[in-house]
């Protein structure tokens, strides 16, 4: 129903029944409940953030202070010492790479850089391949199209990590074992990405626009690049962001395929920190902190767009 219809319906309802609201002059309902709401919101926010805060507390206090009862809840002075320990522990003195003494070009930061490189390449590739396929599926006509769409949706049901064994053999055939390529190539496209871009393009690009361009005599690629891409760039950004985050989330595969530290991603580097039996809480938390800090920073800038993007996607899907 339209806005006009609904408001008239509300009026009708109102006129049929006597006004029951106790005090029409009172503030709107949502403002009345706000003190309690804010309290609840702050509580949940606290629960969401607390583990990350706790990680920083431990990383900045070191083991001894944490072993106190009750444990310290405020940041301590040892943050940089602990970070240095992480660098030292990750530094296996491979002559080809930096050393722990170097605050920037050490192995842990090298792993961070690897992760960012893999994440960016994968994100760009996924957006590109998903967008062209999504466009073809949503707006073009060609033989086998229906079958292809069903096929893509079908592959969404196959959990990708279950193909790990065969992927290992493939990586061997491609001579990609123990290289960043092994992380990038199998992740160039996902069925979800194609499906999502198809939905997005279908919903956001009016057919008339494409027909107009077609009359202009623009070719398919040109239309895709200069008309479609600018319109869907927000959704493309969200897809890219998801792909980037998914690369950071991937744990098992890098662990299985990488063995040299120059190729380690940050997940593997953090995993190496716990290879020792003695539990070094501060060291682990320091590693986790270094590994999550870039995401935290990213999230500050794009978190709202990400949430908005997921909501839009949820409505359309």
């Amino acid at each position, binding site marked *: 129903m339209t806005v006009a219809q609904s408001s008239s319906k509300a009026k009708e309802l109102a006129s049929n029944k006597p006004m029951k609201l106790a005090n029409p002059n009172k503030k709107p309902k949502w403002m009345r409940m706000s003190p309690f709401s804010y309290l609840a919101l702050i509580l949940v926010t606290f629960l969401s953030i607390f583990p990350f805060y706790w990680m920083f507390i431990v990383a900045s206090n070191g083991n001894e202070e944490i072993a106190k009862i009750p444990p310290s809840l405020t940041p301590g002075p040892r943050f940089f010492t602990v970070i240095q320990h992480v660098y030292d522990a990750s530094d296996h003195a491979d002559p080809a790479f930096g050393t722990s003494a170097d605050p920037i070009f050490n192995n842990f930061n090298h792993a961070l850089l690897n992760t960012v490189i893999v994440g960016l390449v994968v994100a760009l590739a996924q957006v590109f391949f998903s967008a062209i396929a999504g466009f073809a599926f949503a707006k073009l006509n060609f033989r086998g199209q229906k079958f292809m769409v069903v096929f893509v949706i079908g592959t969404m049901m196959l959990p990708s990590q279950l193909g790990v064994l065969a992927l290992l053999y493939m990586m061997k055939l491609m001579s990609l*074992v123990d290289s960043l390529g092994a992380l990038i190539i199998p992740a160039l496209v996902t069925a979800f990405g194609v499906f999502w871009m198809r939905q997005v393009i279908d919903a956001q690009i009016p057919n008339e626009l494409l027909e107009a361009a077609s009359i202009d005599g623009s070719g398919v690629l040109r239309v895709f690049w200069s008309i479609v891409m600018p319109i869907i760039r927000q959704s493309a950004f969200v897809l890219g962001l998801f792909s980037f985050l998914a690369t950071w989330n991937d744990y098992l595969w890098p662990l299985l395929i990488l*063995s040299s530290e120059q190729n380690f991603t940050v997940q593997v580097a953090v995993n190496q920190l716990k290879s020792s*039996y003695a539990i070094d809480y501060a060291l682990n938390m320091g590693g986790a902190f270094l590994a999550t800090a870039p995401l935290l920073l990213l999230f500050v800038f794009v978190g709202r767009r990400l949430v908005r993007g997921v909501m839009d996607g949820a409505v359309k899907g």
Partner: protein
Amino acid sequence: MKFKKVSATASALAAIALGFGAISPAHAASAQEITVWAMCSEVGEIAAAKEQVAAFNGFYDGQYHATLTCKADMGTAIKSTSVGQLPSVFEFDGENLAAYVYAGKLHQLDGVVPASVFNNELVSIQAEGTYKDGHKYSVSQYDSGLGLFASKKMLKAAGINDVPTSYKNAWTATRFTAVLKALAAKASGKKAIDIKENYGMGPGWPGYAFTPIVNSAGYQIVTNNKAVGALDSTAVVNAFKTFASWKPYVDPSSDDKAFENGRVGLAWVGHWQYPALSAKLGSDLAVLPLPDFGVGSKSGQGSHSWSISANTTGAELAASNVFLQYIMKDQWILNVTDQNGAVPATKTALNKSVNYRKGGPLQLYADQLSASCGTAKPTKACVTVPRTISAAWPVINTAFGTAVQTIWNGGDAKTALHTAAVTIDQDYTDHSGY
């Protein structure tokens, strides 16, 4: 230390026959080039690896040249590299030897490395480096020691005066139960021992630390290619029932420091804790053998090994042999054991080691390693037993570890060990007996 890396790779996989990008060493003009992969697990070991390679290159300048690559995860590196692409020489966890031989990745070292090198090795390490075909496939610079650490004062305070002085007069399991009870009664937290539960009671730690319980009951986990009848025998089942009965006296030690911080008087752990413990406890620290479950005290062993890859031939093979002989010199063995605290794995180096030579504080470990049972059925005369030398080891390690965990958490010992034994036997059958 040695064990933990060992187990870390045990929980990785034995060997995937995968390929790996070509290694392109910078060839010196005339020198015979070899490539070397070392395990880069600990700072001291890495330093030692670099020092010995640099010394080798200096000593044989113009004749041989070794290029060192440090692998943070050697298990993954070997399993994902096909034999043609492996380096000339590499270091690995000794427990995986059989799996690598079975996969055709190792070069037989008999007839390559001189017999004198093997003869100088501790018998324990000779045993670990020998495959079931009777041939040697690896050499090792160091071995590991497993036993009990004890606080003399706490034992005395609990009225325990029959403290063992050698593996020959180890406490019996029954006596050990009484010792634990007495210690716990006097301890502030009512606990008596740290068995390193924090290392994980699942696959891994039990394969190293609690296999000696099986051995001390008179069995190898796999005897004549069969685990049923050995691992699930009445003697072993009863030994594990006793073991499980100690749980009330065991400090979970999630801070890793139950013994170091004086909460308990005993610790069931390896040599790697010695430096920290001796610094903290000083002369109060004693090193004791593990308890005797019937056929004498037994102990674990095993550490990093070095070998040559199967496809290495000709001048490269000769140079690899020279390299292995070079790093097996006492000087380089002591150089690495000084840094990581492990037991030097040759007789001559052992005699030069302050900690491990006769009269040294850790002589017990050396004595234990010098009395290896090898792969034979354990008797009262021997002490250390290598982890099962079979390509089935990853399966054995998992099955056994799972059984120990089940028993430790209150499961029926007979059922758990029988399940493990059947699982192990099935794996042998699946692989035509390996």
